[in-house]
């Protein structure tokens, strides 16, 4: 297969303008005749559904939660980037573009990233107009903070709840369209298959999670905005319900899956405390603005942090990266934390933790200012750990947080299945091998508010889409495939719970395809995953029936997909014989332990095709070209 990314020609500054001008338009009066499905109601899904509704399309939006407002975008804390240059500190669209391409370790598509940086400006305007209560200066102007991987202050925030406030803005815009009658919202309903007719995405099979009823929904185009797949690892900062089922089942219907091994480990999470643990809690990266990260100089130092004098502390990020210090990008910060813990210098009961210390910032700025900036995060930390971070340094450790990989999309956000569009974290598009902090909110909203409204119109106007009916054999086949899958899970009646399998799968993937990987470990992991998956289909137990609210059944289907995706992650990681961004292969590092890229052989997007159960996936490469930002060894020193 040859991938056409449909990147517009001409100078990058004009690419998006040119592309929009060349797109075909749908007559305003005809828009309501086009039915679109939006799956997911996070930042990307809600903003897409709302905007398409405003334009007059007939939209149906689905979410598995009881309300669209619960989508996991809500948990994003720190902020959203935009190249407004309100701080007059040298920011520009080009600089945000440059920082993002570099931060992604030269594994993202330049044209996409440039458009993202351009759209960042309008996102802030839109959110402010919706009433998102961003932090302000006394004079009334918007204020900014800095974030990892950048030397300008371009991050807009609403306390430590930026994701919540942006999502509520998009949710309210969505509910306004529900009231206006352009959007039908269907909560507590999960997409379980994609319907492809004559090579085009024409609908989905969905399960009502309350009644268990399966239904077929047909449309002219399907838009997936279902988030990332970090929950493959079981323990992650994702919500418990976050899952890859929609994108994975679309993959099995023909959509290529790009760069599955690019996963992001967030450096600042609360360390694991016990084996009952169900999820990991993030502490916003913005804390690294004022917190200093350190571990004891000496191995196995079990004294309390306040007993360890300045001379006996190693502020290892400041020492190794004097120009970025504690604000190095996430992958670098995470790897360094792992390295000092592997040396035996980790802190806390498990030894898997480093200190994030605010004593200096409190001495310099006063407790009041720190409370203003991070009060709710400090409260949350204290609620969970029973320690007061104003007095004792926080203990943090890296955790899986975001997945840069996802379904392959072209510049118009269309997957390899015509009519199937993929937005936000669910696609692979803009972050390369490592996402910079405060860029996920930006991408979700850029895709939903400002890209899909144009590109889906172009698709509808330039495609001849005949009528299809529920009785179409392909629709019925998808429906019965879903039904068979559910019956099969319910019929196994084995002896192990879904969670116990999921936990074991997560541990395999974390150990061998987590913060660092090597060929031997990846090969073993693939074997282990296959064996465990085999056991899953023999020995899992799913109580209850398929005819009512059955949370075990929901989980069982999602975990079945995580098994297959986890394997593909390892295959992709094994194939990529280089280190880049979040993908750190131990065999490929510089003498001082930094990621060693191999641009000659691996400057491409790895897009994997599904070839059938038990068959090896097929790799298609999309070469990456860098005409503006010249690939270099990333240096934050």
């Amino acid at each position: 297969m040859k991938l056409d990314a449909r990147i517009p020609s001409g100078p990058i500054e004009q690419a998006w303008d040119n592309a929009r001008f060349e797109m075909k338009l749908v007559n305003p009066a005809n828009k309501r005749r086009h039915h679109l499905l939006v799956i997911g109601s996070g930042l990307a899904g809600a903003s897409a559904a709302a905007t398409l509704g405003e334009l007059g399309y007939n939209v149906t939006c689905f979410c598995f939660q009881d309300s669209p407002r619960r989508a996991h975008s809500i948990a994003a804390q720190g902020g959203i980037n935009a190249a407004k240059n309100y701080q007059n500190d040298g920011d520009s669209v080009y600089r945000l573009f440059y920082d993002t391409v570099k931060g992604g370790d030269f594994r993202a598509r330049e044209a996409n990233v440039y458009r993202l940086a351009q759209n960042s400006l309008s996102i802030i305007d839109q959110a402010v107009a919706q009433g998102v209560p961003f932090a302000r200066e006394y004079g009334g102007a918007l204020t900014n903070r800095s974030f990892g991987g950048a030397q300008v202050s371009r991050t807009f925030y609403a306390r430590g709840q930026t994701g919540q406030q942006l999502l509520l803005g998009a949710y309210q815009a969505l509910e306004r369209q529900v009231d206006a009658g352009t959007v039908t919202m269907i909560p507590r309903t999960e997409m379980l298959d994609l319907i492809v007719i004559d090579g085009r995405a024409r609908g989905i099979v969905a399960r009502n999670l309350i009644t268990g009823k399966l239904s077929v929904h047909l449309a002219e185009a399907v838009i997936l905005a279902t988030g990332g797949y970090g929950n493959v690892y079981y323990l992650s900062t994702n919500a418990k319900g976050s899952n890859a089922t929609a994108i994975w089942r679309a993959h099995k219907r023909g959509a290529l899956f790009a760069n599955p091994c690019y996963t992001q480990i967030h450096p600042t999470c609360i360390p694991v405390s016990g084996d009952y643990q169900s999820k990991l809690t993030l502490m916003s990266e913005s804390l690294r603005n004022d917190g200093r990260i350190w571990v004891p100089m000496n191995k196995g130092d079990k004294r309390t942090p306040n007993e360890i004098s300045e001379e006996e502390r190693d502020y290892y990020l400041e020492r190794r990266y004097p120009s970025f210090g504690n604000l190095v990008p996430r992958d670098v910060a995470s790897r360094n934390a792992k390295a000092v813990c592997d040396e035996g210098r980790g802190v806390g009961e498990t030894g898997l933790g480093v200190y994030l210390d605010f004593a200096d910032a409190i001495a310099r700025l006063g407790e009041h200012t720190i409370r203003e900036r991070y009060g709710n995060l400090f409260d949350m930390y204290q609620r969970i750990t029973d320690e007061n971070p104003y007095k004792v340094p926080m203990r943090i450790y890296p955790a899986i947080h975001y997945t840069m990989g996802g379904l392959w999309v072209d510049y118009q956000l269309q997957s390899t299945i015509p009519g199937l569009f993929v937005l936000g974290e669910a696609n692979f598009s803009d972050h390369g091998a490592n996402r910079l902090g405060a860029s996920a909110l930006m991408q979700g909203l850029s895709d939903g508010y400002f890209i899909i409204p144009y590109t889906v119109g172009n698709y509808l106007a330039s495609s001849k889409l005949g009528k299809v009916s529920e009785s179409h054999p392909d629709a019925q086949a998808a429906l019965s495939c879903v039904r068979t899958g559910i019956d099969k899970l319910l019929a196994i009646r084995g002896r192990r719970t879904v969670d116990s399998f999921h936990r074991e799968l997560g541990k395999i993937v974390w150990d061998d395809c987590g913060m660092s990987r090597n060929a031997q470990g990846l090969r073993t992991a693939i074997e282990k995953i296959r064996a465990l998956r085999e056991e899953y289909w023999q020995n899992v137990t799913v109580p209850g029936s398929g005819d009512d609210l059955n949370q075990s059944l929901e989980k069982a289907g999602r975990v079945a997909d995580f098994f297959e995706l986890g394997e593909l992650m390892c295959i992709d990681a094994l194939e990529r014989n280089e280190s880049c961004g979040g993908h750190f292969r131990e065999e490929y590092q510089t003498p001082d332990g930094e990621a060693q890229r191999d641009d000659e052989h691996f400057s491409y997007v790895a897009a994997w095709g599904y070839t059938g159960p038990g068959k090896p996936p097929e790799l298609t490469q999309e070469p990456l070209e860098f005409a503006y930002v010249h690939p270099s060894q990333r240096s934050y020193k």
Partner: protein
Amino acid sequence: MKLTLKIWRQKGPEAPGKFVSYPVDNVNPEMSMLECLDVLNESLIERGEEPVAFEHDCREGICGSCGFMISGIAHGPQAATTVCQLTMRHFKDGDELVLEPWRSRPFPFVKDLVVDRRAFDRIVQAGGYISVSTGNAPDGNAIPVGKEEADRAMDAAACIGCGACVAACPNGSAALFTGAKIAHLGILPQGQPERDRRAVRMVAQMNAEGFGSCTNIGECTGVCPKEIPLEVIARMNRDYLRGIWKERHQLVTTIAPVTDWDLVTK
């Protein structure tokens, strides 16, 4: 430590319900309330029984999915804390905790500890927004918003829509939830053009859903995990009165509450 969880079990709205007591051993004080339920559920599944259905998602106190009564208190005894962040160290060895779903008529029962809170979405549909379509916005700094105003708007906007306020209120009022959105948008300059209409329609919808009236008892703010201040209700009342006075000749339309889950209408 060892605890007894006395949990409301009911298969569906039509099925009979009852309390069932479950002893849970090996409760780690660091666990959250929901992780304690996870442990119980794992043991139920291994015994071939149906696990306790409860709502949860982010498990970091922000999505608003989780929530139930713990021995009569919405979200349990710890102030400003949802059940997903309530650690077991707040209980004593041997305690019995009584877990019940939110009980309020506008929140129809679904299963075990799960209820239907779609009434909240409809209250937002009735006007909990600023009508600005994508692309209409002026530059972000074109409208200055004073820091104090922005902070007060943020205090109200922090609501997570969990429904604890309704569950705690002896009248089953949704005034704190509705007031929070009216206050958030009504404080900001961007929210002024629709301020009257918003208050009138949202209050009308709240009444149409069957939520009770507010009599300023304050239980709502006491259990609110985000500590939404009671003042938002005063603000709602003032904006409502202002709106009624100015728009009294306008016909207020409400959205018909939907209670069933057969959502696919063809």
